[in-house]
C-alpha cells in the first residue's frame, strides 16, 4: 500500500497544517477580543475571519515581500472599507461574480484572499465574506485555492485561486480537463455547478481541490486556514 500510504500522508499533512493554522487564527481571535481597536473589524463578522482582519488592523507599514511571486502585490495597496470592515493594505481583483481582495500582513508573512458574495445576495448579512489565509512562504509554493459556497446560491460552487508566477490552473469535470485562464494579477476564478476538481500546477507540483455537490463548502486542500465570515456558511471546526 505504498502509493496509498504516501498519498494519504501527504493529504493528511496538508490538512494537519491547515488545522494548525486554524488554531493560530483562533488564538488571534481571542487576542483581538482583548484589544479595543479590533472591535471595529469584529462587528458583523464571525470567528477566525475577524481575527485575521483584526490582525491586519493591528499592523502597519506593508512590506510586500512576495510581490515577485504574486503580481497583484506589486499593485499599490490601499485601505478599503467594505461594509463594516476596513481592509488594510488590500488589493482588489475581479471575481467570477463580484469583487475579491488580496490582503497582506505588514510583515509580509501571511496572505489572505477574501471573497464577497454578489451585491445584494445576503441583505441580512451585509458583512458576509469568506476568507482564506496562509503563510506567504506556503502560498508561494502552493498558491491559495479558496472554495466559496453561498447557501443563497444553491448549486453554485465558486473558487478563487491566487496562482504564483509561472503556475497554471485547470478544471476537471467528468473526466474532461480545461485550462482556467489566470489573469495578469495571478487570479483564476470561476463557478461550477457539478462535482469538479480544480488543480494548481506550481513548480512541477500539482495541488488539487474537489468541489461540488458531493464536497460542499470545503476548505481548500492546500491552504493554511479556511474561515468563513458569513454567519450562514460553514465556519471553522
Amino acid at each position: 500500500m505504498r502509493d496509498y500510504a504516501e498519498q494519504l500522508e501527504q493529504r493528511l499533512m496538508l490538512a494537519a497544517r491547515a488545522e494548525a493554522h486554524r488554531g493560530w487564527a483562533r488564538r488571534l481571535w481571542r487576542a483581538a477580543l482583548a484589544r479595543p481597536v479590533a472591535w471595529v473589524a469584529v462587528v458583523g463578522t464571525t470567528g477566525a475571519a475577524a481575527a485575521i482582519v483584526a490582525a491586519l488592523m493591528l499592523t502597519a507599514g506593508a512590506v510586500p515581500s512576495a510581490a515577485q511571486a504574486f503580481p497583484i502585490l506589486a499593485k499599490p495597496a490601499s485601505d478599503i472599507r467594505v461594509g463594516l470592515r476596513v481592509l488594510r493594505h488590500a488589493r482588489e481583483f475581479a471575481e467570477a461574480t463580484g469583487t475579491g481582495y488580496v490582503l497582506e500582513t505588514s510583515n509580509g508573512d501571511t496572505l489572505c484572499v477574501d471573497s464577497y458574495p454578489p451585491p445584494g445576495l445576503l441583505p441580512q448579512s451585509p458583512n458576509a465574506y469568506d476568507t482564506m489565509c496562509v503563510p506567504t512562504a506556503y502560498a508561494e509554493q502552493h498558491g491559495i485555492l479558496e472554495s466559496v459556497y453561498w447557501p443563497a446560491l444553491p448549486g453554485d460552487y465558486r473558487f478563487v485561486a491566487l496562482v504564483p508566477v509561472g503556475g497554471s490552473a485547470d478544471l476537471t469535470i467528468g473526466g474532461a480537463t480545461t485550462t482556467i485562464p489566470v489573469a495578469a494579477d495571478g487570479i483564476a476564478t470561476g463557478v461550477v455547478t457539478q462535482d469538479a476538481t480544480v488543480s494548481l500546477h506550481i513548480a512541477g507540483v500539482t495541488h488539487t481541490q474537489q468541489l461540488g455537490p458531493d464536497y460542499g463548502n470545503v476548505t481548500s486542500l492546500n491552504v493554511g486556514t479556511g474561515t468563513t465570515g458569513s454567519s450562514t456558511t460553514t465556519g471553522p471546526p
Partner: protein
Amino acid sequence: MGVMKDLDGCDDAALLGAHERGDEAFAVFYRRHLDDVLRFCARRGLDAAAAADVTAETFAAVLLGRRRYRPDAGPARAWLLGIASHKIGDYGRRMARDRRALRRLAVAPVELSARDRTDYAALVAEESAALASSALADLPDDQRAAVYARVVEGESYEAIARDLRISESLARQRVSRGLRALRIRLGKEPS
C-alpha cells in the same frame, strides 16, 4: 531532521498532544500505525477499497480529535483501533462510505493503485493465515490433530483414524467439530 528524529522517539501520547509541530507529530503517528489500521481492516474482512476508505477516515478522525485522547484511558493504539472499529461498523451499517472527517478536513479520497491492491491482497492473505494459524493452535489437541491431518495434509478419514487410533466416525466428528470451532473463532459463524 533533528526535530523529526526527536519526534520519532516520542511516545504516541506525546505525538497526539503535540502543539509545536503538530503536523509533523501527526505524520509520525500516522506512519507508526498505518499498518495497524490496514491489518485491522484486513482481519475484519474488508476489501481493498473499503479498507482504504476506513483507514483514511480513521486517521482524519484522529487528526480532528487527537486532543481528546487521554493516556490514562488506555494506549493510543487501542484508541486508534477503537475509532477504526466504529468506522468499520458505520461502513457496514450504511453500506456506504462515511467520509465525514475527511470532508471536514477537505481531504480528497485516495484512489488505490494496482500495486496497492496487490499489497492489500497479500496483507489479507497474511492476516488470514495468521488468524487461522492462531485459531488452529487454540483448538483442543484431538481436534487440532484431526483438522490438521484432514485440511492441511489432505489425509483421508480412514488414514486419520488409523494414525490417531480412533474409529473413522470419531475422526469425522473431530474434524467436523474442529472446523466449526475454527469458523466461530474466525467470526464466520455465530457461536
